[in-house]
């Protein structure tokens, strides 16, 4: 894939606007001059997606890092895009609350970057992804237009839901400067239980069996690694009485499969995978995880690691040609995105097929950023 590599992005001129107005001016200026802009938050995922076709300016949100309003009694927070995720969480915790999301590199990653890459982890099963948590947004378009959408109330259908459009758009439609989220209370108590099914088939059956109960688990993930048996981790939150009852029920559902407590470290699996070299995100139907695991095992040099959430979203570290894996997963209705490409293998397009909606996506890009100023080429279909 031709394009500009991350090393040269790091040498680019950097603009660090201090206000929304300055972001607007910087963008209008760059757009007028035909300078391509790469928005940057914490810089943890700057290499995700395809390398940009052009790059003239890194637009950093580092100085837009205030928590604007934590309306704790209303369970909402408005925060600037450059605020580090963990910093926000610490402020919310002071009132017993959290943004119910577990993204990668929380100490470095910013709100804007987490939103733009739609990065969610294991908690998504219970609390939804970013699209379910974001309720308002300020987006600065390439021509400098400052556009607010949504609001600061949880329920609001006035106008188009632009916060969802910009979530996961990798900065190709505008630069997010501020976001408002709905919040959840911190868990009263938690317990993590780990089940060890005999093999992949048993793991698939048990995962579906747990999903078909009325257990109210917060997370359920399937960990797998070359040469090791699969593990299923379950997270319960709630009152002591509730957790005790659910633990007993889980043991019944597990049948002869052993249930152990290995502690909360098991939830670091996704982060550990992301900290290795290559990183692939794939999404399959919950009942197809075993098939995907099998295909992953046949990819590359046999040194792989993967974690799938029970919702079918998986994170994989594997070195090898990824086209066969993508073909298999796409043929079964899923998708595979190469977030960080394995080194030493032929480059692969990052996103895979966007289907018959691609012309519509291009039309949206054309209306929002007609000169392709923002992150040109990094997104789906060359957007």
């Amino acid at each position, binding site marked *: 894939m031709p394009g500009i590599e991350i090393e040269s992005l790091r040498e*680019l001129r950097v603009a660090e606007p201090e206000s929304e107005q300055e972001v607007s001016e910087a963008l209008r200026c760059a757009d007028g001059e*035909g*300078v391509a802009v790469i928005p940057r938050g914490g810089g943890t995922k700057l290499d995700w997606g395809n390398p940009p076709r*052009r790059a*003239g300016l890194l637009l950093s949100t580092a100085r837009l890092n205030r928590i604007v309003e934590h*309306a704790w*009694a*209303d*369970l909402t927070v408005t925060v600037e895009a450059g605020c580090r995720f963990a910093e926000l969480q610490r402020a919310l915790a002071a009132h017993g609350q959290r943004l119910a999301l577990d993204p990668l590199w929380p100490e470095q990653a910013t709100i804007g970057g987490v939103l733009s890459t*739609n990065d969610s982890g294991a908690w998504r099963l219970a609390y*939804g992804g970013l699209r379910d948590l974001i309720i308002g947004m300020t987006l600065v*378009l390439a021509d400098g237009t400052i*556009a607010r*959408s949504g*609001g*600061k*109330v*949880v*329920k*609001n*259908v*006035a*106008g*188009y*839901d*632009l916060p*969802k*459009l910009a*979530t*996961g*758009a990798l900065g190709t439609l505008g630069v997010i400067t501020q976001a408002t989220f709905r919040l959840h*209370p911190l868990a*009263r108590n938690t317990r993590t239980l780990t089940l060890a099914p005999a093999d992949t088939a048993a793991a698939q059956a048990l995962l579906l069996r747990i*999903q078909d*109960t*009325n257990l*109210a688990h917060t997370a359920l993930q399937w960990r797998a690694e070359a040469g090791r048996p699969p593990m299923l981790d379950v997270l319960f939150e*709630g*009152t002591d*009485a*509730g957790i005790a*009852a659910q633990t007993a029920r889980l043991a019944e559902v597990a049948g002869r499969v052993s249930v152990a407590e290995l502690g909360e470290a098991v939830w670091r699996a996704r982060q550990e995978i992301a900290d290795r070299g290559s990183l692939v995100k794939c*999404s399959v139907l*919950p009942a197809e995880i075993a098939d995907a695991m099998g295909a992953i095992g046949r990819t590359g040099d046999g040194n792989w690691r993967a974690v799938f959430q029970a*919702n079918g*979203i998986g994170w994989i570290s594997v070195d090898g040609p990824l086209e066969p894996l993508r073909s298999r997963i796409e043929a079964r209705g*899923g*998708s595979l*995105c190469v977030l960080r490409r394995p080194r030493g293998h032929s480059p692969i397009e990052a996103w895979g097929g*966007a*289907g*018959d*909606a691609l012309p*519509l996506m291009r*039309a*949206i890009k*054309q*209306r929002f950023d*007609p*000169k392709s100023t923002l992150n040109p080429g990094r997104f789906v279909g060359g957007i």
Partner: protein
Amino acid sequence: MPLSAEILHRFEAVVGARGVISAPDELRTYECDGLTAYRAAPGAVVLPTTSAEVQAVVRICHAARIPFVARGSGTGLSGGAMPAANGVVISLARMNRILEVDFPNARIVVEPGVINLEVTGRVAAANYFYAPDPSSQSVCSIGGNVAENSGGAHCLKYGFTTTHVLALEVVLPDGSLVHLGKKTLDAPGYDLPGIFVGSEGTLGIATKITLRIVKRPECVQTLLAAFPSTTEAGAAVSAIIGAGMLPAAIEMMDRLAIHAAEAAVHPNYPECGGLLLVELDGPEAEVRALMEQVNQICRAHGAWEIRLAQTETERMLVWKGRKAAFASVGRISPNYIVQDGVIPRTRLPQVLHRIEEMSAESGIRVANVFHAGDGNLHPMVLYDHRVAGQEKAAIALSEKILELCIEEGGSITGEHGVGEEKKHMMPKMYAEPDLDTMQRLRCAFDPHLLSNPAKIFPRTRLCGDKPGEYTPHPLEVAGVAERF
């Protein structure tokens, strides 16, 4: 200008003579939706039975530049399904099949004319349900729910329609068929289901919808608490949320709304100034432990009567009065306007107090029911259109209530949509560049502005010619100006 005979023939060629309604007296049903104060006579109603027929009908409209609007069950409350004068109504009522049920993956694929409650009906035997539950759920269609991003009493915990729509087959305003999203999560590209849901029919017509279904919780309990007034009830709501609970629903009714419900469906509610319904669901041990706390909180905030509904029959009775709230107001007033404002939950006491004052000033009565957990108010402004000036005064009051919601940092609509009714309020909530940006999106879908064209926005932005493709500067091509 009325539709030509030739256009009507073309429609008939697609859907047959029985699929086209054009007799003026038969068209009257389609002049409005649940918001009957706004009406326009369509030129024709077309009833396709397949996606291909919808495409063919839309192509005819597109070629002749005739505006069209999709219609489900016509229960909308903001005029979303009101046609353009002499435009075409595309009714999806005949596309009402459930196409696929997939329990292992908890998905169901339906056509847009399927009724909301039928989805739950189809999966109930396996202990699943479809979570969004607007009060009209026994008659409203999934296609209409998608257009309006419908909520309901239980969206506090389970989310809105948008949370539950994974993929859509859509006929775009030029007649092309596209697939937005996938049966799997996080389809590559922009979140198009995320913007299509709630777009009020302005971006195209959904012809196939993939929904999530949800496993029924082990236990559901509903507590009913009677407070002296809505102030104490509101304080109890804040305390419940403050204690770190996320109930499945919290509903509140004021004295006038309770009277109306009693008159209509006799739910045997206690006579009080503020009635609270709190529903918890989940594992039984969890629900029992938390319900005990809810009970204590309500008592501490002055509740003098508390009933706990534990069986399905008891729960249905408790919910009966609330679900019938809109319709039952007809028992105490000849006419009424239902509003749908949202405020930050903590502003509830102040806002209710202001509504009371405004009601007294104008002499117009207001009955209040709320989704109290998420701050969604449904004030029902009561009037008699036979009394000179009352209708006007009622409309003025209901708009003042919405302005109050905006002032308090809220929204003009939580689940009913902007539609025709509230489009003139949009500039009070959003600035010009905000609305202009939304219209950029609409232009990407519908550059000729044919799909429900006059809704949501007070002024329609012309889409103009597409801006030209970006061509790189020659210096850039040469690599000279890449970095500056």
